[in-house]
C-alpha cells in the first residue's frame, strides 16, 4: 500500500495545498512546465454516464498525483476533450489533443468502437494511447504498439475466468443477449468458447443493435430449455432492457440470470420495476457496494472519487457511479506515473521510452495505486489481468459471492507488440 507523503500528513491540509501551489515544490525537475495528459472523454453520446464518472475519477486521481509531487517532479495537467462516444470524432480528438494541446500522451476511452476508431491515429502520431475499454482488441493484436491497456482486464479474460463458476453453479445451457458490435462480439466469442470448454452449451445467441430502445421483441428467441440467461447491454436503454426482461418473465418460471453490471451501470438497483433482479447474479469489475471485507484503501478511494458505501455520489444518492469500471482510470494514471518515472520522461521526445517502460512492467500490487486489486501485466500483449467478482442481488444490494483468481483468465499470447517497430 502506498502511504501519503509524510510532510502532507504533518503539515495538514492547508499547508499541503499551499505546497501544491508553490513552484518551489517542483524545483527538482529539469523543466517546471506541467506534464500534459490528454483525456479522450465520452462526455456526450451513449457513453455519457460513464464519461461523467470517468472525468470525476480522473480529477480525483490527478489531485492525488499532484499532491504527492507530480510526475518526475513536474506538476501534471489533464486536458479533457469530448469525443461524443463517436469513433470518427474519437480520431479527431486524438489529433486535437496531440497537435493543438501538445499532450504528452492520451488515456481514458472506454467504448470499444471509439478505441478501434482512434488507435490507428494515435499510432500514426506516435503518441502513447492508454485505453480503459475492456475490449480484447488490444491483446488480440488488432491495434498497435502505442496502444496499451494497463488499467482493466479485457473481456476475454473476464468471461473465461467466470465461465466455470457460471456453468457449475447456475447451469450448463446458456442463452446470451449481447450488443451487436465489437464489445458484444468479444463476449459472444469468448464466453461461448469458455462455456463449451466446461462441457456447457450456448443454446441461443441474441444480438441486439446497440441503439435499440425496445427489447421485448427479442425475448421470444430465448429457448425454453435455457438454464442461464447471460446478458450484457450498454447505452442509455439498459434500464428498459432489464425492466422489459422482468415484465416478460413476470411471475412465471424463469432461468437463472447472470448479467454484466454494464447492463445496470449508473442505474439505481432500487429503481421501479427492478425487483425481479433479486437473487440474480452480476459480474462486477469492482464491487459497487462496499463489502464487509473491503481492504483499508477502499474507503480512501471512495472518499477521493466522491462515492458513498452504496456506490452513489456522496452529494446525491440517486447519482449512481459506473463503479465497476471507473477504477481503470485511477489505475491507468498510476501506471502513467510509474512508467514516466521509470523512463525518466522529460518531453514528447521520450514517448517511445515511456511505452518501453510500461512494456517492461510485470504486475501491480493492490493498494491505493491499484485499488481494484493485484494485477499481472503482459508487456507483449499490452494487457493487464486482474481478479473478477461475481455478486448476487440480496435485499437490493450487490453482495460478492465469488472472486476469480488472476490465473483463471489467462490465455496464450496472440501478439507480441514488442517486436513491432515504433
Amino acid at each position, binding site marked *: 500500500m502506498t502511504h501519503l507523503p509524510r510532510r502532507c500528513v504533518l503539515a495538514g491540509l492547508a499547508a499541503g495545498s499551499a505546497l501544491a501551489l508553490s513552484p518551489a515544490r517542483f524545483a527538482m525537475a529539469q523543466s517546471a512546465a506541467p506534464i500534459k495528459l490528454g483525456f479522450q472523454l465520452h462526455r456526450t453520446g451513449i457513453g455519457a*454516464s460513464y464519461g461523467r464518472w470517468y472525468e470525476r475519477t480522473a480529477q480525483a486521481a490527478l489531485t492525488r498525483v499532484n499532491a504527492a509531487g507530480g510526475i518526475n517532479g513536474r506538476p501534471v495537467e489533464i486536458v479533457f476533450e469530448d469525443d461524443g462516444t463517436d469513433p470518427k470524432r474519437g480520431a479527431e480528438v486524438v489529433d486535437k489533443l496531440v497537435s493543438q494541446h501538445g499532450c504528452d500522451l492520451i488515456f481514458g476511452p472506454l467504448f470499444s468502437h471509439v478505441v478501434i476508431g482512434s488507435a490507428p491515429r494515435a499510432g500514426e502520431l506516435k503518441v502513447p494511447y492508454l485505453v480503459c475499454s475492456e475490449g480484447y482488441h488490444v491483446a488480440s493484436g488488432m491495434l498497435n504498439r502505442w496502444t496499451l491497456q494497463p488499467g482493466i482486464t479485457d473481456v476475454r479474460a473476464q468471461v473465461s475466468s467466470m465461465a466455470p463458476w457460471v456453468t457449475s453453479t447456475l447451469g450448463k445451457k446458456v442463452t446470451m443477449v449481447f450488443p451487436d458490435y465489437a464489445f458484444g462480439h468479444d463476449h459472444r466469442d469468448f464466453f461461448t468458447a469458455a462455456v463449451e470448454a466446461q462441457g456447457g452449451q450456448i443454446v441461443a445467441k441474441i444480438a441486439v443493435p446497440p441503439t435499440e430502445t425496445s427489447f421485448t421483441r427479442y425475448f421470444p428467441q430465448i429457448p425454453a430449455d435455457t438454464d442461464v440467461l447471460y446478458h450484457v447491454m450498454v447505452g442509455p436503454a439498459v434500464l428498459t432492457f432489464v425492466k422489459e426482461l422482468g415484465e416478460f418473465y413476470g411471475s412465471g418460471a424463469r432461468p437463472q440470470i447472470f448479467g454484466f453490471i454494464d447492463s445496470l451501470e449508473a442505474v439505481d438497483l432500487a429503481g421501479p420495476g427492478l425487483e425481479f433482479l433479486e437473487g440474480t447474479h452480476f459480474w462486477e469489475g469492482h464491487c459497487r457496494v462496499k463489502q464487509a471485507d473491503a481492504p483499508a484503501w477502499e474507503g480512501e478511494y471512495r472518499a477521493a472519487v466522491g462515492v458513498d458505501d452504496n456506490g452513489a455520489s456522496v452529494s446525491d444518492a440517486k447519482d449512481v457511479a459506473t463503479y465497476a469500471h471507473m477504477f481503470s482510470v485511477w489505475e491507468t494514471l498510476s501506471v502513467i506515473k510509474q512508467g514516466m518515472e521509470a523512463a525518466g520522461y522529460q518531453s514528447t521526445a521520450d514517448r517511445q521510452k515511456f511505452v518501453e517502460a510500461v512494456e517492461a512492467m510485470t504486475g501491480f500490487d493492490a493498494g491505493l495505486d491499484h485499488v481494484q486489486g493485484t494485477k499481472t501485466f503482459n508487456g507483449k500483449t499490452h494487457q493487464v489481468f486482474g481478479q473478477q467478482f461475481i455478486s448476487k442481488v440480496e435485499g437490493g444490494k450487490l453482495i460478492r459471492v465469488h472472486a476469480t483468481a488472476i490465473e483463471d483468465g489467462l490465455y496464450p499470447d496472440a501478439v507480441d507488440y514488442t517486436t513491432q517497430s515504433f
Partner: protein
Amino acid sequence: MGTGPLLLLATLEGTVMAAVLALAAVGLSLTFGVMRVVNVAHGEFYMLGAVLAWAVAQAVPSAPLGFVAALLIAPPLVAALAWVTDTTLLKRLNYDPESTIVATIGLSYLLQQGALSFFGPDARPVAAPFSLRLQFPWFGYSGYKLFVVLAALLVLGAVWLFLRRSKAGLVMRATQVDRNTARAFGINVDRVYAGTFALGAGLAALAAVLVVPISQAHYLMGHDPLLLSFIVVIIGGLGSLRGTLIAALIIGLADGILSMLYPPTLAKIVATLAVALVLVFRPQGLFGAPAR
C-alpha cells in the same frame, strides 16, 4: 414459444408501438398541416416532456401522484416554451420553409445540450402510475403498456373533437386551407400559428409523459420519435389526422410483427421502403390533399 403466443406477443407489441407512434406524430402532423413548418425540434420537445416528467415525479413522493402531476405540468410548460419560440423565432423568419428548418435544427441542438447540462447524461426512470402485470401462460406483459394504447386513442379522439367541434379548431382549419383569406376574415393568423406550434409541442410532451414509464427519460431520446413521426406523417399525409392514425397502425403493427419473426432491422427496412414508395407513387401521402 409456439406460434400462437408469439403472434399474440407480436400483436401486443405492435399495437403499443402504433399507439406510441400516433401519439408522437400527431403534433408534428398538426404543425405541418396548419403552419407548413417542418419542426425538426419536435423530437426535442418530446424529450423535454419526458425530462420534465422525471423532474416533477422526483418532487412528488408517490408514484401515481407524481405521474398525474407530470401529466398536468409538463405538457403546458413545453407548450409555453413552444409559444415563445414561435413568436421570437419562427415569426421573425416569416415561416419561410427553408429558414424554419434550419432554425428548428438549431433549436433542437439547444434543447438537447440544455437537457444534457441541466438534467445530465443518465437515463432516468419514471414510475408507472400502477404496476399491473398481465400474466399469460407463456409470458408476462405490462398492463401499463395497454393503458398507453387506451390513452393514445383518447388523446387522438380529443384532438379530432377539438379540430372538428371547437371554434379554435375551426379557425385552425381555416388557416390551414388558406392563410391569406383567413386573415382577410379577421382571423389573427399570428396567434393561430403560435397556438398551433404550442399545441404540437404540448402533444409531443404529453406523448412523452405517457411513454416515459415504459422507456426512460434521456437527453438523446428525441431522435427516434422524430424519425418515426416523419415516417408516419409522410405515409399518412401531412396534416391529416386520420392518415396519421392509420399510418401509425400500419407501421407499428408491421414493425411489431416483422421484428418478432425476423431480425428487427428488417422491420426498419420495410418502414423506410414504405416511405420511399409513398413518396414515389403518392407524394401527398395516403390521406393528404394534393398540393395546390
